[in-house]
């Protein structure tokens, strides 16, 4: 019992020594002042989240309802972004499309990051032959281009929102894994890890309490930056006809067959969702960049 408490005491002392001085919230607050572009990104992301959550009250029309009298009509005061070939309101479809983009982006990156982090922690900490095997598998998955890999997974599982999420999460895994593993390997050489091991702290506790906190910053950064990529990939899948099946409005889907078929006649069908994707991805990239500068200067590229 005495030994137990002494062990916890030493561990806590070691732990205090490495805790970053400023809290995460304070650092985020500073972000807004010092990084205007990052703050702009955060603002757009906030608008996206609001649009996705409150799509019903925001969208003036039902995204799937046809107004045949205004089929292919140009943008007007009544229909802000015009109408598509079935007379549906493009603006409402863009608003509802934010839902799919955000949901697929968050869930796929979240799942992929979680999965990648887990393997990265384990394989980086254990090292040796196990690490070698895990890294070979990750390298191999990385060798298949992201989009082609996701396409194949969706083709195998069939096009549905859930399968798109799974495909992108799977493709995301090695990217998070690499970053986490690299950090773990450098962190585990620190003396406080050795100290923790010397006083008999079990491995899972070392990984969870002493290593994981050091990996959090790079994880947050890589996840934010990956979100933009995931949203583009989701849209690309829908664009190729292997994403979320119609009639669910998705930005990529609006730009695909129908959008391109009426490209010259009614360019607004394709242009507005295209702008929406671009602005949202830009926002995630800007925000991710600023976050990287603040949280983890080492990762700077």
């Amino acid at each position, binding site marked *: 019992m005495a030994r137990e408490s002494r062990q916890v005491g030493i561990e806590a002392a070691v732990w205090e020594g490495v805790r970053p001085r400023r809290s995460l919230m304070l650092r985020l607050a500073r972000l807004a002042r010092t990084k205007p*572009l990052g703050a702009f990104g955060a603002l757009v992301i906030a608008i996206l989240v609001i649009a996705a959550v409150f799509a019903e009250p925001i969208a003036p029309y039902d995204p799937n309802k046809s107004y045949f009298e205004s089929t292919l009509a140009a943008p007007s005061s009544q229909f802000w972004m015009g109408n598509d070939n079935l007379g549906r309101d493009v603006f409402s479809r863009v608003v509802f499309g934010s839902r799919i983009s955000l949901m697929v982006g968050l869930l796929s990156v979240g799942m992929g990051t979680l999965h990648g982090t887990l393997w990265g922690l384990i394989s980086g900490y254990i090292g040796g032959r196990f690490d070698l095997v895990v890294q*070979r*598998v990750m*390298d*191999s*998955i*990385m*060798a*298949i*281009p*992201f*989009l*082609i890999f996701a*396409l*194949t*997974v969706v*083709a*195998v*599982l*069939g096009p549905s929102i859930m399968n798109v999420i799974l495909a992108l999460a799977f493709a995301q895994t090695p990217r998070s894994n690499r970053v986490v593993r690299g950090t773990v390997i450098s962190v585990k050489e620190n003396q406080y890890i050795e100290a923790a091991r010397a006083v008999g702290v079990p491995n899972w506790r070392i990984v969870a309490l002493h290593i994981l906190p050091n990996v959090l910053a790079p994880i947050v950064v890589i996840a934010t930056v990956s979100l*933009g990529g995931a949203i*583009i990939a989701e*849209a*690309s899948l829908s*664009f*190729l006809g*292997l994403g979320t099946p119609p009639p669910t409005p998705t930005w*990529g889907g609006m*730009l695909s067959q129908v*959008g*391109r078929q009426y*490209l*010259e006649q009614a*360019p607004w069908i*394709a*242009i507005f969702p*295209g702008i929406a*994707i*671009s*602005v949202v*991805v*830009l926002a995630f*990239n*800007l925000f991710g*960049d600023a976050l990287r500068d603040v949280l983890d200067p080492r990762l*700077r*590229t």
Partner: protein
Amino acid sequence: MRNYVIRRIALIIPSIIIVSVVIFFLIRILPGDVVDLMMADADSGRAGDKKTAEALRAKLGLDQPIYVQYLQYMGGLMRGDLGVSIWSGKPAVNEIIKSLPVTMELAILAVIISISISIPAGVISALKQDTPTDYVARVASIMSLSVPGFFTGTLIVLLPAIWWHYSPPIIYVPFWEDPRVNLQQMLPPAFALGAIEAGVVTRMMRTTMLEVLRQDYMRTAWAKGLRDRVVIYRHALKNAMIPVVTIIGLQVAALMGGSVIMEQIFSLPGLGRLTVGSIFQRDYGQLQGNILFIAAFVLMMNLIVDIAYAWFDPRVHYR
């Protein structure tokens, strides 16, 4: 150095085997198989004919247990056989070789376009750090990363069509038949693809240039009164280029992915279009041949980059 190269080459083999396993089993989780699809497609009258279906399965080797199928496939690979297109019955390699030049040309043009934009942009941006020029270059590069390739591609098709009623020749013409027509078809998609890569490379170029500019030997070079051009080209750029070359090499995978989209938009008969086509037709043979080929290509490129890195930069420790 020699041992390092040998070891790296040896490490590629397990990677390729893992890719083949992942792809082989992934593709076979498919619910309906290709035979059902072929039967339904070929002739609706005979669609229910079980005997024909069985015969077809036997012919394609699909009646064997899955591990036997895999071993047969691996046996073929050892002899350089990438499998057979289930649809056409021809070796998958044939189609790959036919479509490879299109994708290669697209990728090479895209790299040339991206380098000729991004290297000057990155260098100028670094030299004029925190000026409006730098700001424009940084915003432009992050924007080019944010606009999806299919949107840029679509706009490149759309705008000239609306403004000048211009559209490039539709039927693909190989470069050696008519370079002028071929370039009319290839340059627009290459530009769309190159713009994305230019964003990545500009950012990298700027960062490494800034890092090099802060080195002591740079101060010495300025201090001994060398001309700007000599300092920038010989001392700074030469050193800053090493990581940039690496990034360009590592972008190969992204280029292959991007070409899938561009080939689709611009109707180019390349590897990407072949891959998407084989996905829609559930042509496992072709699909797995393509992916394995692409993955092996990417791994080889990464290897070349790594070796070049060790070769050019004496500071790199290779073991």
